[in-house]
């Protein structure tokens, strides 16, 4: 007998909590509560399933008491740190989210109705109302439709948008939805790591007054007027750390009013000096030994150059400096196992850097002069030295949210599993060129950058994220559709028909987990 969907969901969530609790390797003390006032050391480590994450404050130990990043400055009890936990690479893993649900019975401010629920109109306290957050670590992002420019004027979008599927109920909600008095589209996204920001905000290679992918004007820093890399957020809607802080304070923290200049300055100053990266793996041991590969650890990140194109054999995206390629074996089995793991990481690096495959129908990659398809490697897109982001404005459509490639629940008569993500039908207006790879009508779980620019070619494009601290902050992709690094590798394998061997996948996963 098949149980109802809601019962199954509740049971599966409960099972997940039990599993998470029993497998937990870190103490709950790693959770950072708003206003707890504990100093954040100059260098701290946090255990995770794959090893250990390092958090480096280059300005030295931070007194968090009264610090606006760590205090509940809004009206819902959250602080910035609520969703940007040091233990979770300054992001937030779904594992931690579930632990907080269990520990607080869903009462933690983390689960605030504004975006910690699928829709504020749903009954609070019911895990089904928070399923996006509990299942995939996704927060609701509510965006005006049609989009608005930075100066508040309305953009005439190139496409119309309809709600095809609305499992969270928010897009059709009379108060919060597309047909409300303030038409709004709700999408569900992962929080990005607030660390290593000299890389996400660099002013180096590929940043200019016009976007190198489509010739449109770049977003500028309102304080300096300079163009920005537009790589901070998944839809590039906030040009600078200060703009993002104001936006996050008013939305996620429900701050009444705005951040003061002093608060903004303290928040951004903290964000500019904090670095995170994995520092140890359980199988490979320390990643940051003095003579180890210079790619690893937050100290190397802090010391290296930002905004450098690393898709070459002179700087490398992640420089291993030839370390760990061939390690000697000894009579010590433990030592040999560690060497084997390190060699796997080195092979995974080579898969990332040198394993070619055909990249096809990916907007803002195949459309920017390389041809469709293009025979290249992971490092072609993930080319920024030390982070694997795009050096230029980094939004692309690799199919994580656009159909037919986005992960969808298989519907058939033998399952009651139902899709969790919303689905939108986007239609490019008459007189507008159809999307070159998806045509005039596009189905998407999240229109991504298209919700900000209003451009058909931007539908489903997402700004690629840095590769750091991955082991501490699953799941992956902006919509959390890859629960593990293995699922991430599997997605690429499926999307681009790569044909990875099992060994290649394992090596790639080990490499990514070491970053």
């Amino acid at each position, binding site marked *: 007998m098949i149980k109802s969907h809601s019962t199954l969901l509740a049971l599966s969530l409960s099972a997940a909590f039990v599993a998470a609790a029993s497998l937990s390797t870190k103490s709950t003390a790693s959770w950072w509560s708003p206003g707890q006032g504990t100093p954040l050391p100059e260098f701290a480590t946090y255990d995770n399933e794959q090893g250990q994450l390092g958090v480096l404050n280059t300005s030295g130990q931070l007194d968090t008491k009264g610090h606006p990043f760590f205090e509940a400055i809004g009206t819902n009890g959250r602080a910035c740190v609520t969703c940007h936990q040091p233990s979770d690479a300054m992001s937030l893993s779904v594992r931690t989210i579930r632990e907080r649900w269990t520990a607080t019975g869903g009462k933690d401010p983390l689960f605030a109705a504004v975006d910690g629920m699928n829709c504020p109109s749903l009954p609070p306290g019911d895990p089904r109302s928070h399923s996006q957050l509990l299942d995939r670590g996704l927060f609701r992002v509510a965006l005006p439709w049609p989009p608005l420019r930075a100066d508040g004027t309305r953009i005439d979008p190139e496409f119309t948008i309809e709600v095809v599927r609305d499992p969270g109920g928010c897009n059709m909600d009379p108060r919060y939805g597309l047909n409300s008095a303030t038409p709004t589209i709700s999408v569900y996204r992962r929080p990005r790591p607030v660390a290593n920001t000299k890389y996400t905000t660099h002013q180096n290679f590929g940043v200019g007054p016009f976007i190198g992918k489509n010739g449109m004007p770049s977003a500028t820093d309102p304080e300096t007027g300079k163009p920005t890399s537009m790589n901070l957020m998944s839809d590039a809607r906030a040009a600078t750390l200060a703009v993002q802080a104001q936006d996050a304070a008013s939305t996620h923290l429900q701050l009444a009013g705005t951040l003061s200049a002093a608060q903004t300055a303290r928040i951004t100053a903290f964000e500019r000096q904090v670095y995170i990266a994995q520092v140890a793996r359980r199988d490979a041991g320390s990643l940051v030994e003095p003579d180890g590969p210079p790619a690893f650890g937050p100290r190397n990140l802090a010391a290296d150059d930002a905004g450098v194109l690393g898709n070459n054999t002179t700087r490398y995206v992640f420089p291993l400096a030839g370390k760990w390629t061939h390690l000697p074996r000894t009579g010590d089995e433990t030592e040999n196992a560690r060497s084997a793991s390190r060699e796997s990481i080195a092979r995974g690096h080579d898969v990332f850097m040198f394993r070619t495959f055909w990249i096809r129908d990916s907007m803002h990659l195949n459309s920017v002069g390389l041809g469709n398809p293009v*025979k290249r490697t992971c490092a072609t897109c993930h080319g920024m030295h030390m982070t694997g982001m795009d050096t230029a404005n980094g939004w692309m459509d690799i199919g994580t949210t656009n159909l037919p490639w986005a992960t969808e629940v298989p519907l058939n008569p033998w399952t009651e599993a139902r899709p969790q993500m919303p689905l939108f039908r986007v239609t490019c207006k008459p007189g507008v060129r159809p999307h070159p790879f998806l045509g005039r009508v596009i189905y998407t779980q999240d229109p991504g950058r298209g919700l900000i620019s209003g451009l058909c070619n931007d539908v489903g494009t997402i700004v690629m994220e840095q590769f750091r601290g991955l082991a501490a902050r699953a799941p992956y992709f902006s919509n959390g559709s890859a629960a593990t690094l293995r699922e991430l590798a599997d997605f690429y394998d499926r999307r681009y028909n790569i044909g990875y061997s099992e060994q290649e996948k394992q090596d790639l996963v080990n490499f990514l987990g070491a970053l």
Partner: protein
Amino acid sequence: MNARHVICGTALLLAGLLVPVAAVLGADEPRRNFVSCPIVRDTASVPCWLAEYNGQLYFLTIQSDVTSPVTPPWLGHRVLVEGTVSAESPICGGIVLKPVHLSVIPEPDASCNTMLPAEERYNLTFEPPRPPGPSKGRLAFDNAPPPDKKSPAVLPSTRDFLVPYDFDALVGFNHARVLTDMLEFARAVNARDVEIVGYRAAARLSNGQVMLEESDIGKRRAEQLAMLLQGANLKSPAYKVTWRDESARASGIDDYAIRRAVVTVHAGEAGR
């Protein structure tokens, strides 16, 4: 698919117009202007791009990087090829067209889907400027020294900027540099006026047919350039935006050069 790019028998319907067939270029004429599905052939290094016309296979370009003067076409779309037969030995089994200009036809065409596997006999006989993976530390064709950031002692009071386009295209990835040049000059001379002229063109094919660009493309090109410069906060100059139809100039010889806009920036008093 809309009516603009429908192949109907041997006649091409473009921009809603059936264009009369003119005299076909002579058989010894080295120019090859045609619309065809691109073909990508893998090699042991970078792929090469080909297209078939009148039973002949032509080599268009190899995969390189964004600095390449000829960027590869797209599967899933037809391509307008405007090239000249070269005396070079065939590459990847194709007669070499050099110089060649390629324009991706915007309307998708799923029938363009030919990928050929690598064959030893078609491997490149030269080292490509850019390998298929990471580069060797430099971009393939961008060997020019970085622009001198020092302003010359005296800037001209007027400067023209030529903006070339692919067929039926507006601004794309390859226009960021010329737009930046315009912007920087306009700021440096405290521009008083910006005149923009957008042109509509046509392409005469080797079979005598003429492909017309969209009727309003000249207007759209000019207006878009003004919008982009203003969007980059160049708001103080007065903008004069006009457009012209030069599609009648299509001769089958360098028709790509007609697809353009010209932006003329006039210095203001303080910039002279």
